[in-house]
């Protein structure tokens, strides 16, 4: 889930190493500036840099591979069409994220209106390091049940609760990064996280 992975190839004028964050920052500013001025190659490099992050966050928010792929690509496509509004001084991902989350929230809302639940969506969450896990069938069944419960509980949460949990638990962002992404104070991040976790715990206890 590394958003900073540099794409191979390219060979454009802004081919820079990303060893230091400062370097990465100026490199990104340059890419954003070029993309805004109509350089397609620069935009494609921004896509390559952030496609994983956008996909994963969409997966966390909507819970299905196909939809996460569609929605994240749609977000980039909209960003591309609106690229003249890009501001090189601001982080590209923060701008993109606003589009991703809006698309995902709308998608969830429409899904609720359609009153459908995605049966096929049920495998978006897995246990870390499940490869090293034992082969004991009882243990395996227990693990599968644990994942199912967490998944069901998260799917039952509201969008905002789900969002804050995804950013913290699955994207592993620090509080200040979440605050910057959502444009809210750190105190609010902690309050939202607290409420979301509490509701998640309650949902899981009910399911027991």
């Amino acid at each position, binding site marked *: *889930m590394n958003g900073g992975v540099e794409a191979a190839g390219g060979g454009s004028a802004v081919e820079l190493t990303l060893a230091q964050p400062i370097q990465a920052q100026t490199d990104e500013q340059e890419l954003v500036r070029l993309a805004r001025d109509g350089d*397609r190659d620069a935009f*494609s490099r921004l*896509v*390559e840099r952030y*496609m*994983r992050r956008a*996909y*994963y966050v969409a*997966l*966390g928010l909507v819970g299905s*591979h*196909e*939809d*996460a*792929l*569609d*929605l994240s*690509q*749609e977000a*980039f*496509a909209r960003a*591309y*069409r609106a690229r003249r509004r890009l501001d090189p001084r601001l982080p590209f991902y923060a701008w993109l994220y606003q589009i991703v989350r809006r*698309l995902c929230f*709308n*998608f969830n809302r*429409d899904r609720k*209106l*359609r*009153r*459908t*639940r*995605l*049966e*096929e969506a049920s*495998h*978006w*969450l*897995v*246990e*870390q390091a499940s490869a090293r896990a034992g082969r004991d069938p009882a243990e395996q069944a227990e693990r599968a049940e*644990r*994942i199912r419960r*967490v998944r069901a509980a998260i799917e039952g949460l509201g969008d905002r609760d789900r969002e804050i949990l995804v950013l*913290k*638990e*699955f994207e592993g962002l*620090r*509080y200040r990064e979440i605050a910057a992404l959502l444009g809210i104070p750190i*105190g609010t991040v*902690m*309050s939202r*996280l*607290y409420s979301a*976790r*509490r509701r*998640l*715990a309650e949902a*899981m206890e009910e399911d027991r």
Partner: protein
Amino acid sequence: MSGEDRQDRERSRHLLMAELDGELTPQERGELERALAADAELRAERARLHELKEVTGAMKLKEPPEEIWEGYWVSVYNRAERGRPDPAVLGRAGEAVHAPARSVQGDPAMIVTPGSSIAGHRIVKTLGLVRGNTIRARHLGKDILAGLKNLVGGEIEEYTKMLAEAREQALDRMLTEAKGLGANAIVDVRFSTSYIMGMASEIMAYGNAVVIEMD
């Protein structure tokens, strides 16, 4: 509860979160410990949240197949330039379903046709088979609706839409592959459908990637 109590409670909750996520400063740790010592309810809450964190902390989002990244940008670009609304994003019940037929707008270089020749052009190079597929799971709720339609007759919109989306996606993937080969047209394009298990079907688009020139 007085305003001050409420503030204290909020502060304690923030400290609990910061502890859980490893963002507690040493001073805050002291503060949290004092608050915990004085409040049994807070201790119980802390235990509960730690238990939860242990469960969620052991999980991660499922990784997609690695190959999705290869055609990612091309799909984004096609989508942006074609300017078509995405059915998965906009497709609400009752809305018109996208026709799967396409002219590849914004991408004048690529012609996709079910025929084996293109008027006004000749094929100068055959690059071989290209294909794109997608596998869609059927939906229990939709199945029930569709089952009802079976009784009363009429179009089963639930599936029309799903398959239209699937065909678009299969086409997209086929185009990506053809572009990768340096083709500027695909001829003899066909769709095929097959069933995998009872609940999932595969839609595949395939064709012959070629390079064409104007006559």
